[in-house]
């Protein structure tokens, strides 16, 4: 759901950038407080892994493909939605500047959708579902599905405001495709959580309830 430059008028992109910068500042404050020499390599590897898996477009039928976004994964593993903002901002920066995937002017909107909304939805729905489900992998999977669907719906509202998509038709199509793509997000997030928990259990945020 990387929005290209031509999909949002400049003045609207500027507003999204201002909002994104507020969250980037908060994410840097989170990083300053929470990261240490132990966690920096984990978050760097997580970013490299998210970049790699994002390159893997899988077919979801309907003439459409999708890939992991990774906001829920980063937020759950590191125990904060700001972890998703931190990682996704830098991954989106590389994708837009080096590979033209997602625009430069629209990077603010992409950071809001995939980093901020994806991270917050992923983190808080994981925390709530985990209280009931008591299975971190199931909870992470459902949270990741929501963290794919809800940013896509937010993007379709932004596309309506931008005059690019009609509201209802855009939301139905974006919702349908990302409900399918979210299944990829769910399985990869749960699987990656399991792999990281097996390799470095002490690096996983303790509130996840992941035990190995």
């Amino acid at each position: 759901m990387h929005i290209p430059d031509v999909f949002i008028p400049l003045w609207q992109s500027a507003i999204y950038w201002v909002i994104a910068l507020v969250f980037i500042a908060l994410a840097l404050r989170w990083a300053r407080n929470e990261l240490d020499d132990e966690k920096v390599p984990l978050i760097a590897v997580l970013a490299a892994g998210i970049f790699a898996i994002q390159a893997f477009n899988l077919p979801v039928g309907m003439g459409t493909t999708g890939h992991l976004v990774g906001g829920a994964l980063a937020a759950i593993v590191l125990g904060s939605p700001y972890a998703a903002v931190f990682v996704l901002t830098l991954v989106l920066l590389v994708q837009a500047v080096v590979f033209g995937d997602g625009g430069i002017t629209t990077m603010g909107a992409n950071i809001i959708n995939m980093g901020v909304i994806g991270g917050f939805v992923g983190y808080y729905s994981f925390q709530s579902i985990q209280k009931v489900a008591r299975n971190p992998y199931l909870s992470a999977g459902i949270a990741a599905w929501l963290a794919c669907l809800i940013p896509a719906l937010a993007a379709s509202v932004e596309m309506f405001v931008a005059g690019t998509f009609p509201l209802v038709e855009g939301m139905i199509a974006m919702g349908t495709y990302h409900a399918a793509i979210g299944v990829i997000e769910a399985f990869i997030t749960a699987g990656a959580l399991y792999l990281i928990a097996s390799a470095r259990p002490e690096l996983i945020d303790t509130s996840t309830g992941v035990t190995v």
Partner: protein
Amino acid sequence: MENKQFLAIGLVVAILIGVTAVFFAAGDPDGLESTAIVVQGEKDLFGPTPEDGDPEAVGHDVGFEYEAPMPDYAMGDDAGKMGEVIAVVVGIILALLIVFGVGKAVTASKH
């Protein structure tokens, strides 16, 4: 597992995933692009995507254009799959280095 070992294994796994993606990833447009083709009336919601569908046709002239050095994770038609492999490996290493660098910089600023 030691930090350096974790970093190395993680990087290798990421590169393996990325290189596999070059050869096996599907080519259809993503959800946002598919939606752009649907709202143009060129594609049915559940139907296949037409070969000549152009998602950006719904876009506006925003007065800004940017030419990325490796557009679409490739290095031009001549470089082919090898160019795509180089592009994805460069991307993975850049993502790792930039997050590592910014992470180190913010943690160092504590002291």
